[in-house]
């Protein structure tokens, strides 16, 4: 009897202790993720002197010296613009090519479907940025070298498989009956898509567009290989790593990170759905 009583008392306590451990671990892991970002931002929000000084303060002085130096540094504004341009193009291309494919995969059974899926999944097993090397030569011949569209094309190879898989899972999540109901109510295929499927899939498509944007925004290797004059922000920072002062690097790092935080926040709902489907 007493052991039973003890057990029933001990169990909630053990659970409580377990809960505390759980929460503590989660908080610790959150700190592990957030602290480094915080430190970078402390640097970015300190004056150049403070950044190179020692010892350092762990709180920002909210001096915008580093940031304004960064913004006014020759080539930065252009690089920022290029990054946005390339990422936007990548976004348009990958959704433009990927969404129809995702729709086809979700709605039709046809010979060759598995082959296509294999082609898409295969891209994952390759270090894709390397493909920028041969493309560099091809681009010189076709006049695409050092252009935003050229780089966007390469970034689209990175983003397209994701766009296909995400939109595939999105469209699969919308019951076919909704579309069929629209057909029986007088819609053509295109009308049914525009009036029923598109409004329902739009948030998800927007999320996968943002994801494509992020992929391009962050990509370093291909950007560094394919651009010389028209560098993106990542390529610019990479090439000036050797000579640029610390505060420029940190301000640049912050400029890369802050949009990324927003992007991930924007797509957070879809991150898990798209990887769940991508597993299969």
């Amino acid at each position, binding site marked *: 009897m007493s052991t039973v009583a003890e057990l029933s008392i001990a169990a909630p306590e053990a659970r409580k202790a377990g809960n505390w451990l759980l929460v503590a671990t989660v908080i610790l892991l959150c700190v592990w993720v957030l602290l480094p970002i915080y430190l970078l931002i402390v640097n970015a929000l300190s004056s150049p002197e403070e950044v190179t000084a020692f010892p350092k303060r762990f709180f920002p002085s909210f001096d915008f010296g580093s940031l304004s130096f960064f913004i006014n540094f020759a080539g930065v504004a252009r690089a920022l613009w290029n990054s946005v341009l390339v990422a936007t193009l990548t976004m348009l291309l990958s959704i433009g090519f990927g969404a129809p494919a995702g729709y086809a995969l979700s709605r039709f059974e046809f010979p060759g479907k598995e082959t296509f899926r294999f082609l898409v999944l295969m891209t994952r097993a390759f270090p894709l940025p390397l493909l920028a090397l041969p493309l560099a030569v091809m681009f010189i011949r076709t006049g695409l070298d050092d252009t935003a569209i050229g780089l966007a094309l390469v970034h689209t190879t990175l983003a397209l498989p994701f766009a296909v898989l995400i939109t595939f899972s999105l469209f699969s999540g919308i019951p076919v009956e909704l579309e069929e109901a629209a057909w029986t109510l007088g819609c053509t295929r295109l009308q049914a898509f525009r009036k029923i499927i598109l409004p329902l899939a739009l948030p998800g498509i927007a999320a996968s567009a943002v994801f494509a944007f992020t992929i391009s925004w962050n990509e370093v290797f291909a950007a560094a290989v394919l651009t010389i004059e028209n560098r993106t922000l990542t390529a610019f920072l990479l090439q000036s790593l050797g000579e640029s002062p610390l505060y420029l690097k940190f301000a640049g790092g912050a400029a890369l*990170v802050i949009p990324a*935080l927003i992007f991930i926040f924007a797509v957070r709902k879809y991150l898990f759905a798209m990887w769940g489907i991508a597993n299969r």
Partner: protein
Amino acid sequence: MHGKALPYLLLTPATLFLCVFFLFPFALVAFEAFTRDGGFTLDNFRTMAGSWKFPVTVRNTLLLSAVVVPIQLVMALLMATMVSRLETGRSAALYIFAIPLGISDLAAGLIWLAIFDQSGFLNTLLSNLGVIDRPVMFLGYQSKLTIFIAVALAEIWRATAIMMVILVAGMGLIPREYYEAAEVFGASPWKRFIKITLPLLRPSLQTAIILRVILAFEVFAVVAALGGTNLPVLMGETYNWQFTLQDRNVAAAMALFILAISIGFTLFFLRVLRVPKEARI
């Protein structure tokens, strides 16, 4: 009437695109790697392997992967299971854990540079604690070990998120009833993790590991930001051959080498973590 052609029409843009920008350059790399001045040759590979840096880069890259990936796997599993048991703040924790997913490797390198730099936060902390009285040069050319540790930490920090996301998604596919059944039969949480989560998570584990290993072979900007040339890795060397040494063919050979080990490891993990079709959920 429904047009058997429609699906093909819809797939054409993506397919054409992948052929031109994925399959074709892939063939081109292979071609360039095996030719020099128009003739077939293995010289490019000889030059590549003959370089004194080559063994070092291979060793660094593989070592880095060997250290980073297992740690990431454990951390990702930890994050995923913790989050799944969390009652409040679940989505906030998930978002925070997923943040590094959106951060470029270059930015990650810079973030950790802020910590490991000579005037960085680690030195400040150590001197505030009285452990050191002068800032230490963690990332100097003589401190290969600390560079390695810094790069490894930055990689673990940056790329655990992708594994975590894949595993969380995978866990979401495991029906709750299995856990409830196991609990009824008296399995402890640890037993449930070992006996149910891990086996049923195998497809996700496979994807996560393959993806991570390939990305680990691609490590580039983190190293560039933290180590400069003091910790040469494969991608960095490829970049060097292309630009500093202006030898496209050797760079192509190098790229092919990275491709080869990536495919090798992919096949290895596909085989080792193979899930029989009948045994899937």
